[in-house]
């Protein structure tokens, strides 16, 4: 979706021949070409794939950056001779890509702009110093100009780069601004343009290969300690903390065992994390021995360095987090929860229970009136009329009402369709029984009935 309609994101050669183009609306394209087959575009996946290709391209030179949504730009200065020359490098690139089912359009020239022009409009190689000659027959669109500038230049009859090059500069600048000529200068090499390689994303994994297989638990713990120390260094450099760690133990029989550790808080303190692995490692069958260990932080969160002060210098919070992690490895971290206030008058929705590992304790608990300590699903009792029953049976107990406080009317939230509230309004009563039990009853005047929903005390 772009500009409020479905548009073509990219197309294959057959579709281009049929007269379709990028950015065309899907309805128009279908009219041109009724047999058109489309798939929704996934730019995020494309970007991820381009990232993979970028990593692959670093086999040719260290300076690799991405260009737009589908291009890579390599600065091969001083690297081509390693492959036997530019020509050979290009063919090697093409051959390797073809083996993976990719078609590359490669342009190689003295400048970034010229290489872009060649790649997009005349794939091939411009020998050193022959950039101007190679670019001259190409259309002006090859200069990475805005569509409006291209249209303007073409209206003046300047269709090719060579013609633009031959035109006096001053009138052009007056008419189109400096950007058109800047692009020309960049392509011709009169103005520099750098290739900025992308930083390698930090790699949160460490590996330990052992000359002799190990099987004792202390040895595995020691290996984990060494891996963890290295991993935590990386985490500290990146100011991140691990949330989920995965330890892979490869055994000599090529089988492998995995230990996953989910932490209750982002952490990068090796001494704290190591004991938390103990429980996971307890149940590991080492078989004939383990000869390779790999530790990866599969989920990291940012954890800025903090100044230690009297408030957070203590280890109270850290101890609690460690405890929650250990409990979480046994029963699942999402089963360790805490209450958070919610904005609702419905008793059961006035709070939420969320995993403690991903929430902060909430403040602002203000019950409008006394609320029961226990809530349960409404249990029907016998009763008639809007006044609480004098005596009733609940859970096989005969109870006699001694005092009733109420009613407190709570209306359902009409914007939710809650099956529990199908009976409409509720009038809540606090009932004190002669037997001692203090119950929270409600009456539903719209569909008469009496229910017990909670217990005080």
């Amino acid at each position, binding site marked *: 979706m772009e500009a409020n309609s479905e548009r073509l994101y990219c197309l294959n050669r057959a579709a281009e021949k049929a007269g379709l183009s990028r950015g065309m609306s899907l309805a128009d394209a279908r009219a041109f070409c009724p047999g058109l087959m489309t798939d929704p575009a996934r730019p995020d996946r494309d970007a991820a794939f381009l990232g993979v290709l970028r990593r692959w391209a670093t086999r040719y030179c260290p300076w690799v950056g991405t260009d737009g949504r589908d291009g890579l730009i390599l600065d091969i200065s001083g690297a081509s001779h390693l492959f036997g020359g530019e020509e050979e490098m290009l063919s090697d690139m093409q051959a390797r890509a073809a083996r993976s089912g990719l078609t590359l359009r490669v342009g190689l020239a003295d400048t970034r702009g010229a290489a872009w022009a060649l790649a997009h409009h005349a794939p091939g190689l411009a020998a050193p110093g022959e950039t101007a000659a190679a670019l001259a027959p190409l259309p002006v669109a090859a200069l990475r100009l805005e569509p409006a500038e291209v249209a303007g230049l073409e209206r003046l009859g300047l269709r090719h780069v060579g013609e633009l090059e031959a035109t006096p500069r001053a009138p052009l600048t007056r008419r189109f601004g400096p950007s058109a000529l800047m692009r020309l200068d960049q392509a011709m090499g009169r103005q520099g343009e750098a290739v900025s390689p992308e930083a390698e994303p930090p790699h949160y994994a460490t590996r330990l290969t052992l000359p002799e297989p190990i099987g004792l638990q202390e040895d595995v713990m020691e290996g984990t300690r060494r891996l963890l120390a290295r991993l935590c260094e990386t985490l500290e450099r990146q100011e991140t903390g691990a949330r989920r760690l995965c330890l892979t133990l490869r055994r000599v029989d090529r089988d492998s065992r995995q230990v996953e550790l989910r932490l209750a808080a982002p952490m990068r303190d090796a001494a704290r994390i190591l004991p938390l692995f103990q429980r996971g490692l307890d149940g590991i069958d080492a078989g004939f021995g383990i000869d390779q260990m790999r530790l990866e932080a599969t989920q990291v969160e940012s954890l800025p360095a903090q100044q230690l002060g009297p408030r957070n210098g203590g280890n*109270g919070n850290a*101890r*609690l987090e*460690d*405890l*929650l992690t*250990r*409990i979480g490895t*046994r*029963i699942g971290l999402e*089963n*360790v*929860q*805490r*209450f958070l*206030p919610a904005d609702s008058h419905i*008793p059961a929705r*006035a*709070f939420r*229970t969320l995993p*403690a590992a991903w929430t902060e*304790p*909430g*403040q602002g*608990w*203000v*019950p409008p*009136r*006394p*609320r*029961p*300590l*226990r*809530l*349960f*699903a409404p249990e029907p009792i016998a009763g008639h009329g809007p006044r609480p029953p004098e005596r009733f049976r609940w859970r096989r107990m005969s109870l006699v009402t*001694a*005092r009733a*406080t109420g009613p407190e009317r709570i209306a359902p939230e009409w914007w939710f369709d809650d099956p529990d509230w199908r009976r409409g309004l509720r009038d809540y009563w*606090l009932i*004190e*029984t*002669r*037997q*001692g*039990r*203090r119950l929270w009853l409600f009456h539903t005047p719209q569909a008469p009935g009496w229910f017990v929903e*909670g*217990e*005080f*005390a």
Partner: protein
Amino acid sequence: MFRNAFPLRAGRVHEVCGPGATAFAAVTCARARAGALIWIRESWQPEGLNPLGLVDFFDPARLVLANAPSAVDVLAVAEEALRDGAVSLVLLEVTRPLDLREGRRLQLAAQAGGTTGLCLIPEGMGSNAAESRWQVAPLLDQGPGRLDRAGDSTLMRWQLIKNKSGTLGAWDVRWNRKTYRLDVVSSVGQRPGSAGAPAGGPLRVDAHGGQ
């Protein structure tokens, strides 16, 4: 004396049963030292705690809930939490009688961590290893002045029915929601060995004071 029995002895596991067990647990939470509390229960149990009801006793933000899939996991988590000592109070709801081994393990864990444990048990399913066992039932409050406090009666009878290091007793107590204090209304004084009522007015146990 009530003061000797409550607050609960630290580093031990105690038990409470009866219809008022939740309120007893809430009062114990209010008396615990500041910091997090862990409440462990089996995940299938339908009767949920209501934090808005707990507000009258302590700040529910301190509470960490652990929903264990089975009774064994409840005990394992409780042992872990008791031994660790990062929290001052561990509450667990057990649904079956604990045998001596399980009760003893919890007791040892509580000693190791210096943590107080409180088991909410079904009636009559206590473990022999427990330090003390309380039976708590709400009472109908018919005393004078009751009508002034519409709807916030908290009168309960706390019966100490097992105590390894002291005498048994029974007390009528009331939780004061305004001042977060436990007022001992009167000593029931029927059982042998129970403490007599203090002479001048109700005895007050400060919720936030020292022991």
